[in-house]
């Protein structure tokens, strides 16, 4: 392993990644604390966008664009549809948090402390010399279709099963066997 540069002189990439990380963590905090349901979904867009930016900085271009396409484009829209179909309150709602908020906060802070401690302790000396183009669509595509073909096909079957399951669950004229 190469010698680790100092933490006191961050490179431009690190600064950009830290800023994006601050945006992602802040948006995630707003997702779990905001009083408005629709705003939570929109803050989720911000969080996922910042994560896509982080992937770009980490040279994982293809994953970044897939993140934008699927997470921001599909999943958040799906969540917004869910919010509207359940006739959720559009404005401020007081009852979005349950009664076990303090316990949840304690558990979350404990998780954060443990994870951050372990990560910092374990990877203090790890350093990535970033190489542009390492995660381009060409590289990832050839890897998927050369080494990961079987999981890829199985995944398509899984998507089909999820599709049929969602249809069966949401149609009202399909009854279970009595």
């Amino acid at each position, binding site marked *: 392993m190469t010698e680790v540069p100092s933490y006191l002189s961050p490179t431009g990439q690190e600064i950009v990644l830290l800023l994006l990380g601050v945006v992602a963590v802040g948006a995630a905090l707003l997702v779990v604390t905001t009083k408005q349901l629709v705003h939570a979904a929109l803050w989720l867009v911000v969080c996922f966008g910042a994560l896509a930016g982080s992937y770009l900085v980490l040279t994982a271009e293809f994953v970044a664009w897939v993140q934008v396409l699927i997470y921001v484009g599909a999943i958040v829209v799906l*969540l917004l549809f869910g919010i509207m179909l359940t006739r959720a309150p559009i404005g401020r709602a007081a009852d979005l948090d349950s009664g076990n908020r303090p316990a949840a906060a304690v558990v979350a802070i404990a998780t954060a402390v443990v994870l951050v401690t372990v990560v910092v302790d374990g990877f203090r000396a790890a350093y990535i010399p*970033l190489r542009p183009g390492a995660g381009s669509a060409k590289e990832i595509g050839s890897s998927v279709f050369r080494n990961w073909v079987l999981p890829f096909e199985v995944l398509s079957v899984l998507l089909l099963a999820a599709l049929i399951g969602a249809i069966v669950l949401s149609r009202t004229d399909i009854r279970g066997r009595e």
Partner: protein
Amino acid sequence: MHVVYPAIVSALLFSIGVYGVLARRNTILVLMSVELMLNAVNLNLVVFDVWLRDRLHSGQVLTLFVIVIAAAEVGLGLAIILALYRNRQTVDLDRLRTLAESTDARRTDAATVTAGDAGRDGEGDRDRGRGEDQVRGRSPATPLDPNPGTNPGTNPGTNPGTASGTGTASGTDTGTNIGTGTGTNIGTDTDTDTDTGTVTDTDTDPDTGTVTGPDPARIVPGPVNGTGDMP
């Protein structure tokens, strides 16, 4: 690029997702928090893939798979939530307590009930339990065993069945209790009778009808078989 920076961001995102899953009441918000946790995992996968320079690109390919699985999960989750909303008119997690056990207070209350109460409870249960609660045993009430209770054991009623009878059965019992006697009820079922409208057949008693004499040792803490089918 130090590995620590994105790893810390990922750890923080994961903890925020944990908080959201535990603290939110709206089911869609819980789904969003699950998405946050999945994204934290994705960030970790990408970082370690880039760090280790994996020739197979396992991390990034697995990230793509996780994204696709997350899409399927959100689709199915929303279908479930919509079905729930159609049936219950709420997506509030605190109010969806159908699968919960009955509370401890009610269970102990029902376990220490006396035989007369248990008899009344049994009758009420027979009224409520879809009329299937065929307690046929009229106990002859011998002085040795106040509760011989020839229950034929076809009680598919709403008995969650804690079956902790402590033998407080007095002799005033006139039969139809499914009671707390130390007596010969093989599989002593005590009605805790969670009358929540939906009859949840969690009958416990494996009794097959023929009651053979006083047997104080058989106090079966009945296993809830959940189907109501008597053997």
